[in-house]
């Protein structure tokens, strides 16, 4: 079953990447065009979001009527409800980087297929940022709770 799940994840990832490419989401100029409200506004990101949300909301509604996923024992869905400081601080830092470059994690990883050096540099630095955060969190969590 784990092989089937991995194969399903591969196919779903490819569908995701294909959708990103069709929607023009690999192009930082399209993303920044949407964010540039005072400039030559490009509405495409809005249409991609609308299409994704309609289908995704239907998928989630459907999943709520399932006892368990088709290929796994349980659903692994975030349950946290509280809006806290890390959420807002993290979203702010992400928004800053996203606005600067016009790439977020999904399109950046998908765009590796294009073999462009700027994308490779961006993804390498993104992985560095992720690793730095996780390293700091592991240290701050491990020390007070280890006693």
């Amino acid at each position, binding site marked *: 079953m784990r092989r089937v799940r991995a194969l399903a994840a591969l196919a779903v990832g490819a569908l995701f990447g294909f959708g990103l490419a069709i929607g023009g989401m690999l192009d930082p100029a399209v993303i920044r065009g949407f964010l540039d409200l005072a400039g030559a506004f490009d509405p495409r990101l809005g249409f991609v979001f609308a299409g994704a949300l309609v289908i995704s909301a239907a998928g989630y509604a459907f999943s709520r009527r399932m006892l368990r996923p088709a290929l796994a024992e349980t659903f692994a869905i975030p349950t946290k409800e509280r809006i806290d400081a890390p959420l807002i601080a993290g979203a702010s830092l*992400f928004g800053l980087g996203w606005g600067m*470059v016009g790439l977020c994690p999904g399109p950046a990883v998908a765009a590796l297929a294009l073999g462009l050096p700027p994308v490779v540099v961006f993804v390498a630095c993104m992985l560095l940022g992720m690793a730095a955060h996780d390293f700091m969190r592991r240290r701050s969590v491990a020390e007070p709770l280890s006693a």
Partner: protein
Amino acid sequence: MDWSAWLQSFAGGALIGLAASLLLIMNGRVAGVSGIVGALLAPIRGRVDSVRFENAAFVLGLPAGVLAFFLVFGEWPEARIEASWPVLAIGGVLVGFGTRLGSGCTSGHGVCGLARFSRRSLAAVGTFFAVAVITVFVMEHIL
């Protein structure tokens, strides 16, 4: 820009939504790219679990989908990157650090979180869109 470009964008979004739905319905997982990539960076202790295989497969699938786009349409999708090298590097670190601290990005909070009406995701999406709009405004119209 004509309506066919808008329709194409909507269709691309629908495929993304379909992918997110299928990952949930089949594997029971949320299609959040920063969470999935971040989980792959965690050190391996003992034997590699099946979730890591799934994560790696999903991440490999993303560029594979772009390759599929090339095979279907005979051309690569456009990617016009204007950012200078220092901006690319700093932006990359901010996106990586920020999405891990904020527990998600455009896919996890944006597509999946909003689709299940999560308050946390709504707050995150409002925040990163607002900051990104201000960032682009400052870079394009003030600096």
